């Protein structure tokens, strides 16, 4: 087991290097650089910028240096000093920007994940046990609709309904008056009032996949001889399902649980942007739009690391849970 883990970790390093290199390269692919996007933005606001000044700034910030030089400067600082660099746009250290958004991001991610599981697992099991029943069809239909409707659209529609019929203030994880206030019971209540919209929107979209997987796995298991045996021996139906097929049906679920870790971190970028949530998603989007290299690179690097770690966790968990995986392949 230990050897397995060490082996996997060693694989991780070159993977990450390649990921960062490609990410950095892709961010730089669009024409222009941070300064030209900055200029475009100022011009859109009615300002005009002196090209000579821009040229001087370009040299100052090193954005006209070749790709390799910029990449090396960035990655070596991270590796040697743990310094993610300075965001061009915010003029603040990237690590500060990410850290201050992290708690809310994780809260939203975990809440969404739990919501998805709480809905999807029972629904999947139910629709397998009552296959082809009305309930099965309703659940499947709802799941697919949630999957098919673009999240950001659902967010806008829900926001509009909230505004139109409930007079609710739209967007954000807090009402403006609480945004900068220190934590209190009232602030927490305010958070809960706002949190449910993104949780429901992002969470529902994720249920369809899990419902279908659980349903398919359960169906495979439910007709196996051991279930029939258990039933013949007189075990109550609920106990049969919980004790045996369900546990096996959870396998693919565990093998994908690690994938959720990066998505907890970068969340649902567009929904979070539309709803003006103070999470890392909108930060990444705006960094990519303005070609804020170090900020975008930093977030992508963290997401990549989390993806790799998540996959590792999944593998280990699966080995722990399922003896067939542990002893297989010999």
């Amino acid at each position, binding site marked *: 087991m230990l050897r397995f883990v060490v082996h996997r970790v060693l694989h991780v390093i070159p993977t990450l290097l390649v990921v960062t290199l490609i990410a950095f390269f892709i961010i730089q692919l*669009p*024409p*222009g650089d941070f300064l*030209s*996007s900055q*200029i*475009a*933005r100022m*011009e*859109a*606001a*009615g*300002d*005009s*910028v*002196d*090209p*000579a*000044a821009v*040229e*001087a*700034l370009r040299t*100052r910030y090193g954005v006209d240096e070749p790709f390799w030089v910029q990449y090396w400067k960035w990655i070596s600082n991270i590796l040697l000093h743990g*310094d993610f*660099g*300075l965001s061009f*746009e*915010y*003029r*603040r*250290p990237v690590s500060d*920007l990410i850290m*201050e*958004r992290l708690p*809310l991001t994780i809260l939203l991610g975990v809440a969404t994940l739990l919501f998805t599981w709480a809905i999807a697992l029972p629904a999947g099991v139910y629709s397998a046990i009552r296959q082809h029943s009305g309930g099965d069809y309703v659940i499947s239909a709802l799941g697919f609709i949630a999957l098919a409707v673009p999240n950001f659209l659902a967010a*806008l529609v829900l*926001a*509009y309904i909230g*505004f139109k019929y409930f*007079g*609710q*203030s*739209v*967007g*954000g994880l*807090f009402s*403006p*008056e609480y*945004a*900068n206030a220190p934590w209190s019971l009232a602030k927490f209540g305010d958070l809960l009032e706002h949190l449910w919209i993104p949780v429901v929107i992002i969470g529902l979209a994720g249920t369809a996949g899990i419902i279908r997987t659980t349903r398919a796995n359960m169906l495979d298991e439910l007709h196996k001889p051991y279930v029939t045996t258990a039933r013949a021996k007189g075990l109550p139906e609920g106990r049969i399902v919980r004790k045996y097929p369900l546990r096996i049906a959870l396998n693919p679920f565990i093998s994908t649980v690690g994938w959720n870790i990066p998505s907890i971190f970068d969340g649902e970028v567009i929904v979070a*942007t*539309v*709803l*003006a949530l*103070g999470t890392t998603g909108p*930060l990444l989007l*705006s960094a990519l739009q303005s*070609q804020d290299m170090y900020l975008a690179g930093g977030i992508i690097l963290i997401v990549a690391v989390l993806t790799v770690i998540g996959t590792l966790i999944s593998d280990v968990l699966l080995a722990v849970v399922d003896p067939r995986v542990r002893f297989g392949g010999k």
Partner: protein
Amino acid sequence: MTIYTRDVSRRSLLVYGGGGALITALGLTACTAEEESPDPFGGGGTDAMESPMLTELVEAGELPELAERLPTNPKVLEPLDGPGQFGGTLRYAQTDVNATAVLQSFANQGLLEWGWDANTPEESVAESWEVNEDNTVYTLTLREGLKWSDGEPFTTADVLFSMVDWLGNSTLMPAVPFWFANLDGTPLTAEAEDELTLTVTCNEPFALLPKYFCHPAVGYQFLKPRHYLEQFHGGLTDEATVLAEAQEAGFDSWDQLFADRDNLWTNPDRPTMGAYQVVEAANAQSGVGRLSRNPYFWKTDPDGRQLPYIDEMQIQVLQQDTMELRAANGDLDFLGNGLGYKAAQVLQQNAETNGYRMLRWRTSNDGLLAMCPNLSHQDEVLREIFLNRDFRIALSHAIDRDDINNTLMDGLGPIRQPNPTEGSDYYVEGGQNYLEYDVDKANELLDGIGLTLGSDGIRLRPDGAPLQVTAIFVEATDGVPRADALGMIQAAWAAVGIDLLIRPVDGTLASELRNGNDFDFDCTPHPSNDWDLEPVWFIPTSSGSHTAPGYGLWYNTGGTEGIEPPEEFQTLMDNWDALRSAATDEERIAAGQAIATQHDEEAYVIGIVGVPFQPVVVGVDVHNVRDDEPSLDFYHGREGVTKPAQVYFAEAAS
């Protein structure tokens, strides 16, 4: 809501003398009769000389008395409809966390400022100003006893610090901006005679300088607190120390630290001369910023009561749709900048139920959409065609603007060419040529310049290739929907044998293409006025030009790079130089009118249709906001045209 207001104007207050407050009280009571508050002056009434919020601090011994905080001769700001009470938090929103526009609108500060007409410079931080006969030497006298928001005195040392140690420092300012440069690119010369008197000397006459002092995005840059910022200045403090501090904070060089500390929007420690000061920055985490009143603000109303009336501002950073929905929900107290015209319907429908009114202000230059042909095109054949006046006139006649207006703007949009409008200094009679929809005339003109029709109905260029051009545009949520308008122009031009392709591009790419002189047509909103503050729209002065970046680069680099402009553009540039360095207003206006006339006759830019108005939401309890449809205009501080320091809440909101 504004019916009563004329009755309690400043004049009537003067007439009734001491009874003024009573009249105001009556006005307010009449206005808010349904409200049950026994005391309509929750914020200390109109008797209080300063905000109760500050009185508390004075009583606690944390702040000097009002008299010690005000200058000897404060700037008196006439309230629009009558004096207001203190207090309240004004809720505002913006879409970009880094945008500082709100400070330029609500906490504007400059040596001079625009008057109510948003055109005439008047005294501000400077109590008076003079200029010599040929517009080369400006003498400004500061108010005596001005103080920064931290209580430190404001003197000419601070202005000199900005003009000499900041603008004149090659590390901080690699290229001197055009608003403080001689024609040869060197900074203007600034000298202080004493603590209050300052002279600015220019090599050539510089008649526009007072306008730049007023320009909200420029003017504040002349007011930098030396006592606070010099510790971050590598030229004034030991460079090694500052550099070490910069690196400690994560910056590579000291100028970055300086810029960071100098940022009024993100650094609450930076003293200001504006009406409000940031107390909590809208950082990435919260997306809500908080501004609080500057206790040392140097403007009062005519009764000597310290402005601003409103205590605090809350700035929410939101995505466009969310911002508009919040406005429609009555969650914002005063907002114009950034609200899209297409949101007007929703805003109007919900105004009454949600407690606000929607004003129709003019937009900055009407958001007039225009087609800009690239007159310095790299392809010499196309350049020659574009440079032909008849070609541009034909294209203008080929467009059915009424159709576009009816389809996209409910027929309400103004149809114009982007030339100075009446009332502007550079307005010329006429100025609106070639707007009629006349396909026959267009065809006749195109035939006349030898662009013969090919077999497939597309005209042929002199070199035999079909005349196919591409228009780039950046899609935006506000203003005239550009993709739709271009679709209609495409059909209209096809009818006269010109094959137009449409290419949506990202803002960054558009800027790159323009600066690289690599586009055929640029479809963009085009200003009509105030271009003397931003000449690039009317004269190719830089490679950022929308009509002739090649000539712009040539002008900007003194002829070493770019494409040499033909004679007519030389004339345009000469006129601009003449405008810029005019010794008298007459000369300046004459030069500007010559430029406008040339644009009028030559149709360098083809105007299409503009936006009927810009929606502005104002809470019903928010008073002293202009309802005479001023222009929500970058050059004049957007919401700042209503002088927000005298805006107040009828009933204190907090």
